[in-house]
């Protein structure tokens, strides 16, 4: 790499590994405990995975499909595919069988990452010739099918080093769905686009290396790539993955991230958590709390505001894991009035960022062919809130 600014995600990853090798890059919760990887470890893992993919025939322009919830293996393997000049295509694991079949037919991925045995079975039932990578997150007995590769066996230590093959105008991520009229559309995000947008976000939101971000949305969402993954490699903050989507609220409370990026539904769900912790809406205690949260004027205003902060606002921010948040972003449509009022009262300013997308219609192909096909399902873009 020269002294010029990196222009692809893998180059930014190497940049972070070179300049901040021991800083924490990635944390994930597994089996009830948090595990951390430094930038050097992340870069080494991605390089080894890229070498393993290349040894099995993955080349520039190939597609890697990821049928997974947000988990560190999906992220590392996405970066490994991009390292090799390929494109990562996350798909929602909740996708129906018919939609999954359509996606496989048109995308013709070189490899598919499946998060567990059930997804492996589903994928193989659709297409026996698939090469499936089993994430095998619990390190139990690997899937018995001969075409299934254990994720742990994929990493290949390369003595000479495996140089990134990604190009700035090459596709980094792709997302696919069925349009309302049943036609297939896709959205491709190049490295250059992601880097440019991430730089804008980092500057606007003043993100820095000491920030903590929390990846609690579906992995198969374009905004996850735009507002979390690309800014992560650019600014070098810590990215945290929850144990599962079902435990994300507890996990966020444990971490208290400084950067939260969600949709209006994410924030509505968090607002419901607050509501659940407060006394019933008609009780006198609730009315008192609501009145205090609305703010007080007059001679006792400052005193009441101080008491409200210490007795109500601060504990509630702790409960929802927003105690340290300085960048709360809502992607797409803004918050509804009730949720916005709540976050305002909790003194958490939520700023809206667009979820602009450029969906292109894809010509559907009747027969699968190698190596490149396209497609998917509308659910692929729907995050699990």
């Amino acid at each position, binding site marked *: 790499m020269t002294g010029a600014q990196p222009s692809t995600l893998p180059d930014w990853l190497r940049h972070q590994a070179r300049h901040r090798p021991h800083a924490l890059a990635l944390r994930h919760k597994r089996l009830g405990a948090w595990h951390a990887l430094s930038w050097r470890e992340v870069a080494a893992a991605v390089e080894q995975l890229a070498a393993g993919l290349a040894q099995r025939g993955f080349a520039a322009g190939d597609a890697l499909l990821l049928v997974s919830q947000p988990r560190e293996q999906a992220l590392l393997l996405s970066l490994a595919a991009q390292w090799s000049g390929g494109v990562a295509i996350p798909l929602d694991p909740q996708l129906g069988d018919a939609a999954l079949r359509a996606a496989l037919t048109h995308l013709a991925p070189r490899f598919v990452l499946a998060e567990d045995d059930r997804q492996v079975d589903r994928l193989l039932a659709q297409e026996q010739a698939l090469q499936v990578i089993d994430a095998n997150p*619990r390190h139990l007995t690997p899937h018995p099918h001969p075409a299934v590769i254990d994720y742990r066996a994929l990493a290949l230590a390369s003595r000479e080093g495996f140089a990134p093959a990604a190009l700035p105008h090459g596709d980094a991520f792709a997302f696919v769905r069925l349009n309302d009229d049943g036609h297939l559309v896709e959205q491709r995000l190049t490295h250059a686009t992601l880097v440019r947008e991430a730089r804008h976000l980092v500057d606007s939101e003043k993100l820095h290396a000491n920030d903590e971000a929390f990846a609690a949305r579906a992995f198969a969402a374009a905004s996850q790539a735009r507002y979390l993954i690309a800014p992560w490699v650019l600014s070098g903050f810590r990215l945290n993955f929850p144990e*599962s989507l079902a435990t994300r609220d507890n996990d966020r409370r444990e971490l208290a991230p400084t950067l939260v990026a969600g949709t209006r539904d994410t924030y509505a769900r968090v607002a419901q958590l607050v509501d659940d912790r407060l006394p019933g809406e008609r009780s006198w205690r609730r009315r008192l709390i609501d009145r205090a949260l609305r703010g007080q004027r007059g001679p006792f205003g400052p005193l009441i505001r101080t008491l409200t902060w210490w007795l109500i606002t601060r504990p509630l921010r702790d409960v929802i894991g927003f105690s340290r948040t300085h960048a709360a972003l809502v992607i797409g449509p803004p918050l509804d009035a009730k949720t916005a009022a709540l976050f305002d009262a909790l003194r958490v300013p939520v700023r809206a960022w667009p979820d602009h997308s450029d969906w292109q219609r894809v010509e559907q192909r009747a027969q699968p062919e190698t190596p490149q096909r396209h497609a998917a399902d509308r659910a692929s873009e729907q995050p699990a809130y």
Partner: protein
Amino acid sequence: MTRSTHALLSLDHISLSFKGVKAITDISFNVQAGEICALIGPNGAGKSSLLNVINGVYRPQRGSVRFDGNAYRRMNPYHAAHSGIARTFQNIALFRRMSVLDNVLTGRNLHRRSTWLEQTLRVGRARGDETAQRRYAEVVIDALDLQRFRHTAVGTLPYGVQKRVELARALAAEPRLLLLDEPMAGMNADEKRAMAGYVLDANRQFGVTVVLIEHDIGVVMDLSDHVVVLDYGKKIADGAPADIRGNPDVLAAYLGTRH
């Protein structure tokens, strides 16, 4: 999981009576290592009694049980557990006031290496032991998607989740043979489908051989490698699901035309 060609469990001419009432009459069959074997039959056919014979709760008057090459005329539940046999019950038998994690950890008791004194004083092997047991319990909790309920008291959980916790506790014992007594009783179709998935996961990922009792024939046919049909304490059929489906004796027993 990969099927083995050797029988992990063999029942040889088992007969069991309760004060003159014949619960089981001369039943023999084999369960291959790695398979899922379903015991089916009408109520009172002797299915639960047979499970109780396998794990030593009942002692048969005749016949023997061979588990992993060792023949037993008399096996008590303690030895059965030590030999690698775990079970769940028709009615939920959990510690209702304890958390899911603590319930699952009780399944690890046989694998603890530290003494009660070391555990009380937290000295010697206790710390490493606790870490190892907790880690395995967490693997099971993760496999059965119970993470969000980890610290929740079991008594407050929905019925379907409690059944899953019971399966988790049995799996935590690292059994080689898992006996499941109606694991899907009282569940709706979606819950049954999910539970069947967890049983398959247990069979494949944990490498455990499963003998289960289930009334839902659809579930049995989809889930099992091998089906044994009992009626009035006797075995009336034994074979692959496809063979059992058209067996006239089985149809007669289920439709009530034979008695």
